């Protein structure tokens, strides 16, 4: 078979259409990079007294039932995790010969969040203002955000027949109205400092490198998962305070970007390549003195019985 002009145009048109169809991919939902001075919180675990006022404030601000075992010391007997009804929890960590430490857990509000990049329906969004928020009306409940989160933050309402994903919102609404997140506004010990990320990082380094400083020289969240809005410092290695030490120092979306970048190439390169192979196979059949088979014979069935 000769490639006729018409066939050639057809292939060209198909490749062009494929290229156009693949373009929206470049418009990225997650790459609405947050501003440099994104709002952030510095958690100094050496200052936390474990009063759990942040838990209570969080529950109130989000309309959640009050925190478990309010005012009961036994709450620290077991490790708790955030859940669909508790967007933040404080856990106690004891070690021999070291002071007791408490660590608050909530969404880290990554600068380039894996959950938002993973969402098929943009139900999770990194707002330009900084908070990573959830739009339940778009959610399919596929739970890929949970797979994507290196901190295991998004929680799913398994008990519901119409479930949502739930997590800390960084009090995006309060922030929009000029208020600090509920948890930080009630902290009595100065363990939580709300501010801009740059300033907080600078302040944290100052504490870490002060002469005689007892701090471990690592700001958890500075580079973890490409950087998070919540930053932690401590006088004990943070993996001893329930933090994951195996989180990559690289943004999660950057791990899937190469695979997604291959899409336009496959869409544009496969059709001409396959049509080329088809043309060769037809020529070979002709040269062998057979009637060409393949799909372009008026009917494929014809060939085998010819």
């Amino acid at each position, binding site marked *: 078979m000769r490639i006729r002009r018409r066939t050639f145009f057809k292939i060209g048109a198909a490749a062009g259409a494929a290229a156009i169809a693949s373009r929206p991919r470049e418009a990225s939902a997650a790459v609405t990079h947050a501003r440099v001075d994104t709002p952030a919180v510095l958690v100094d675990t050496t200052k936390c007294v474990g009063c759990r006022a942040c838990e209570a404030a969080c529950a109130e601000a989000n309309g959640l039932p009050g925190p478990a075992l309010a005012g009961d010391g036994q709450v620290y007997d077991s490790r708790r995790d955030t859940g669909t009804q508790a967007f933040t929890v404080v856990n106690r960590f004891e070690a021999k010969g070291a002071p007791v430490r408490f660590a608050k857990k909530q969404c880290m509000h990554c600068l380039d969040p894996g959950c938002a990049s993973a969402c098929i329906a943009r139900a999770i969004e990194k707002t330009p203002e900084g908070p990573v928020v959830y739009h339940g009306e778009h*959610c*399919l409940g596929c739970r890929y955000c949970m797979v*994507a989160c*290196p901190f295991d933050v998004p929680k799913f309402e398994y*008990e519901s027949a119409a479930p949502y994903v739930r997590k800390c919102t960084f009090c995006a609404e309060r922030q929009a109205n000029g208020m600090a997140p509920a948890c930080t506004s009630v902290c009595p010990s100065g363990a939580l400092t709300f501010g801009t990320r740059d300033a907080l990082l600078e302040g944290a380094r100052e504490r870490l490198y002060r002469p005689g400083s007892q701090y471990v020289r690592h700001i958890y969240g500075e580079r973890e998962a490409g950087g998070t809005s919540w930053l932690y410092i401590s006088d004990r290695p943070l993996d001893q305070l329930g933090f994951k030490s195996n989180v990559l120092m690289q943004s*999660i979306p950057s*791990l899937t970007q190469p695979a997604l970048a291959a899409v336009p190439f496959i869409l544009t390169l*496969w059709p001409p390549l396959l049509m080329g192979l088809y043309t060769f196979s037809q020529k070979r059949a002709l040269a062998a003195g057979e009637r060409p088979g393949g799909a372009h014979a008026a*009917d*494929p069935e014809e060939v085998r019985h010819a």
Partner: protein
Amino acid sequence: MRNGASAVLARPWITEKVLLGLGPREYVKSLLTPGNLVVGLILAVGIPVIIYRFAFGLGAATNLTQQAPWGIWIGFDMLCGVALAAGGFTLASAVYILGLEEYHPVVRPAVLTAFLGYVFAVLGLLCDLGRPWNLPIPMFHSFGTTSVMFEVGWCVFLYTTVLALEFAPQAFEWLNWKRARHFLVKLTLGLTVVAVMLSTLHQSSLGALFLLAPNKLHPLWYSAFIPIYFFISAIAAGVSMVIVESALSHRAFQSRLDHHVNLDQLTTGLARAAAIVLFAYFFLKLQGLADGGHWALLATGWGAWYLFEMIGFILVPSLLFAHGARTRRVTLVRWTAAWTVLGIVVNRLNVSVIAMNWNAAQHYVPSWMEVVTSITLVTMGVQMFRWVVNRMPVLRELPDYRDAH
């Protein structure tokens, strides 16, 4: 003679096309076989379980947790369903693009298997989604273009449509809609090209889904090459599945066969292809292992399991396929194909469930309702296959269409 012919013509359409030429009462009687009894039992348990899942939510029906959000409905129904359905695009491209005409007799059953595989993978996905009624949102309203899942979603949606169109000529021959069939047959080449494009994309992207979980998937299975592994192994799985499925079909549907076809010869040909693909897959996996540099982990329990997969499920079947093809041991090839299919299932479950969250405190084990749902969906798929093969020209061609163009 004349009377006989007119009697056939006089039979109502439904008797002829649906009830296999039997009267309604005879047809129902013909369904009362031991095999169908088992099927009936499975459906009698499985369908209420699926209803229960939708009524009471995922928590009531599954063992999924906040730490293990994906179970066998993703790992088996979706990942394996799609991988094992890869025979559709593999065989179609071999015949319609590369012109390997001799494989034509296995294209139709491969396309049908693929179509049903996708349909039931999607049904499994619907069971797994918390809010499946929101499916139109990512398709038409709010596009998560940064998500690998978005690519998978669109490709699976489009490719299932393509498979339906590829399969449609068989249905049209059954219905005797010659013009519609003729129109679709003309699209064969275009559909095949689109099928290869879409399959390349989503077969690999199903692996790419796991790229963003490097701290959850065991390092021996996590690799930047997962998309390539998934694509290559899907081809091996698809070819093996065609070998297994054609062998089973030739046993089960004796009366529906085209006896001109030398299946043994096709089987050894497919075995040669499977041997090469599996060998390439083995070497790519080795490359990934070297790239990851986790040699020390091979000495652990996970390492033993990894090596078992690498050698037992990839290297050994590759060599057995090659040996079987050379010595024309068709039975060996068929058992090897079944073993390879099992190996790909193990691989997909390793990546999505078994080696996933390997370092977590608790490990996910599916609930009986999850297992029953998966079994029910597979059973329904097999039943659909039987229903179609018994009626439509899948395993052989209708005399009318051999040279009617």
